[in-house]
């Protein structure tokens, strides 16, 4: 049936325009901008088989013909409504309900076609809506009355309704008018087959979705993130959930013509998932998600317009997936690459600080008699291979914390200060644990070993204030204060060396 060229649908297009005008009469007049296109006989994508893709691209970019305008407007509307509702699905971990719902509408679409044997957007909308609601009701009844788990119930409803839909469609296609109706475009989507009637339905749906979500934003947010608290506040959570499923069915059904039954769920999930990687705030997620939905919708329509007989839905989904992959890799806070980079630089910093601490300890072991230490002594203290220690010394030299000559290493003033700070953090924390938490002195080292790298300046000052004396640690070694001259030089505050100054180890 997919072999039926789309060009065949030019004949029913005239009838479709008629039904569109009927709908106009029903008061949905917001698409008045496009009224001029009603009379123009729109060229279908099938007529364009002979043109080159550059011309096609030009036609798309200049929005010169009504098909393109309808396709663009439709995909934009779809991006908004799917993006908004998809965000709720993703944060509520109900992503696969969208999948089930979108497959379950197929019998409704077929029945909508049967209503008067032509592509009447309103009939299809109502049929699909009823089927979608029946599907989601079946899922909830199944999980309540049987031992079946939700995933099984979703899968069953999805596939059984879809099977029923395919049966009805195959019966419908035997009818003389069946093959010309364009019902196939509902499976994989064809934005170029959108007519004015479709645009009106989509516009109305988007308005309803945006309006209801705007009116009940606080309640929807509460019900989604903390249903228990919402119940305590005597909100009718069940009704809000039903309303959400209803809106979801609205959005799925209105997006069918452009994306197709099979991939609608992807347009719900992928932009919202991308948005959740980009921000932590729900209202920003809603905005991101609808923007991403619109971008992927438009680029999908554009790509499928370039060739002939290319379905729209898969291209939209691929654009959305590409954006998702970019966000997964490069999102500033959640992305894999930035996170990997942050972890790596932190690891490098901790290694560096450990080496500084080891140098300090070697210096301390001979009572600060000499300014320099040998690489061999450092290697013994760090318990690492010689090559690894030499690499660490090179990295210290590179950031000017140390100087190396031959087999001897010396700390620069800034390196010395940093080493003091780390050792000070370590010993202060040990002292705090033995003093305030009553932990035995031989149990505190491992904990301090970890926390010395992350104690911030505020925490160090708090420790200084709480501890009665801060001259020796629990093991009897002196706690270094920052050398007066250096502290003055580096912290820029005169006399800061009079009292012990600590600061965190952050680089």
């Amino acid at each position, binding site marked *: 049936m997919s072999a039926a060229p789309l060009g065949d649908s030019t004949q029913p297009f005239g009838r479709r325009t008629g039904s569109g005008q009927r709908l106009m009469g029903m008061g949905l007049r917001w698409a008045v901008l496009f009224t001029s296109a009603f009379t123009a006989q729109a060229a279908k994508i099938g007529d364009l088989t002979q043109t080159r893709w550059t011309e096609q691209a030009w036609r798309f970019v200049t929005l010169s013909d009504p098909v393109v305008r309808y396709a663009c407007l439709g995909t934009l509307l779809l991006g908004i409504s799917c993006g908004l509702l998809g965000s709720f699905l993703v944060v509520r971990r109900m992503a696969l309900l969208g999948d089930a719902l979108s497959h379950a509408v197929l019998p409704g679409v077929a029945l909508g076609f049967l209503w008067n044997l032509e592509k009447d957007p309103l009939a299809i909308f109502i049929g699909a809506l009823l089927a979608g609601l029946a599907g989601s009701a079946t899922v909830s009844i199944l999980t309540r009355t049987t031992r079946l788990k939700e995933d*099984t119930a979703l899968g069953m409803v999805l*596939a059984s309704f*879809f099977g029923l839909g395919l049966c009805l469609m195959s019966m419908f296609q035997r009818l003389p008018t069946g093959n010309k109706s364009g019902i196939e475009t509902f499976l994989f989507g064809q934005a170029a087959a959108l007519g004015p009637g479709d645009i009106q339905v989509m516009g109305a749906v988007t308005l309803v979705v945006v309006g209801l979500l705007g009116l009940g934003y606080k309640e929807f947010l509460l019900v989604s993130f903390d249903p228990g608290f919402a119940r305590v506040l005597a909100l009718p959570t069940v009704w809000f959930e039903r309303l959400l499923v209803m809106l979801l069915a609205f959005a799925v059904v209105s997006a069918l013509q452009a994306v197709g039954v099979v991939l609608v769920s992807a347009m719900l999930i992928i932009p919202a998932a991308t948005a959740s990687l980009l921000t932590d705030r729900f209202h920003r997620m809603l905005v991101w998600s609808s923007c991403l939905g619109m971008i992927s919708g438009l680029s999908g329509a554009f790509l499928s317009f370039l060739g002939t007989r290319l379905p729209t839905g898969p291209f939209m989904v691929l654009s959305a997936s590409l954006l998702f992959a970019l966000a997964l890799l490069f999102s500033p806070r959640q992305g894999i690459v930035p996170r990997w980079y942050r972890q790596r630089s932190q690891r490098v910093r901790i290694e560096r600080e450990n080496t500084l601490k080891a140098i300090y300890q070697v210096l301390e072991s001979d009572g600060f008699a000499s300014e320099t230490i040998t690489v061999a002594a450092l290697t013994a203290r760090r318990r690492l291979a010689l090559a690894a220690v030499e690499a660490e010394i090179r990295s210290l030299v590179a950031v000017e914390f140390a100087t190396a000559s031959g087999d001897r290493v010396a700390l620069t003033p800034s390196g010395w200060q940093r080493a003091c700070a780390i050792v000070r953090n370590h010993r202060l924390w040990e002292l705090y644990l033995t003093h305030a938490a009553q932990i035995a002195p031989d149990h505190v080292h491992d904990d301090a070993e970890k926390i010395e790298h992350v104690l911030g300046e505020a925490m160090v000052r708090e420790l200084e204030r709480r501890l009665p004396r801060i001259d020796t640690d629990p093991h009897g070694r002196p706690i270094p204060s920052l050398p007066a001259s250096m502290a003055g030089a580096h912290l820029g505050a005169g006399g800061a060396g009079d009292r012990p100054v600590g600061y965190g180890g952050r680089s």
Partner: protein
Amino acid sequence: MTLIPEFQAHRVFVEPWTTELGSHGLMALVTFLVGVTCGLIGNFLILRRMALVGDAISHSVLPGIAVAFLITGSRGIGAMVLGAMVAAWLTHGLIELISRHSRLKQDAAIGIAFSTLFAIGVVLIAIFADKVDLDQDCVLNGELPMIPLEPPVRLGGWVLGPPPLLRLVGVLVVSLVLLVTFYKELLITSFDPGLAACLGIRVGAIHHGLMLWLAMVVVASFEAVGAILVIALLILPGATASLLTDRMVPRLAWTTVHAALSAISGMHLSVALDCSPAGATVVAGAGWFCVVWLLSPTEGLIPRAWCLRRGSVDSRLRSPELRQRNESP
């Protein structure tokens, strides 16, 4: 032509078993084989709450098959199975990657992974439509009606049947062998992965093996019933059986019964309504599920409602005052 053809009992109930045995009977046999093969593995998917991973894999084998076609230029079963297994592996890897390296949960990861791969498959098929011997319709509907038309394989004077039928028989045999060999491991890892790990069973290996087995089953069935209806045949028989019994072996037996019933009734339904045979099989399977849902002795809606109204013997036996009376003679 009307939507619903006139009902003729002879055409619907007798002819498929007599004159049309070569086509309709064969189609019923093929759907039965698909139903059993899918149902066996589907039982384990349901137990592991991986029904929707089955859904994901049945969608995402499509690009694997399409790429295998484009590379080899033929419909060799080897290339197809290999392509599908790679695709299944990729889906599994993508789901793990997304759910492990981001804040998204598994449901969103499943949705993203399979719809992306499915979209790639559809795009490949649409772009290389003239090179790939698959169309978008076949992806959804399967080519059940085409199977009887394929030239049968002959072996030394014996007519063995068309190639897809033989492939399905082969996959069923392999599935049965796998099931019998690894029954204990599958059962333990499904019910209690912790215990399985303690016993030295490699839970991860069994899981990956199950994925590959699923990919093989899905590829073989895909050709007959299409990508989306495979999920119905994966879940429906097992779900029906789980409402009838608690034990695994009877469950597998009920799975087979359900597959046979839905194959036969689906075939009659498709003859009666003259509609897509794969769709009709799924509708019939769903119908049998509904029957069991209503009437199952232990789980059914009607027996339970009846028991509640009468106050069941079981609940009366458990009631506190009866127990007290029994304990103090």
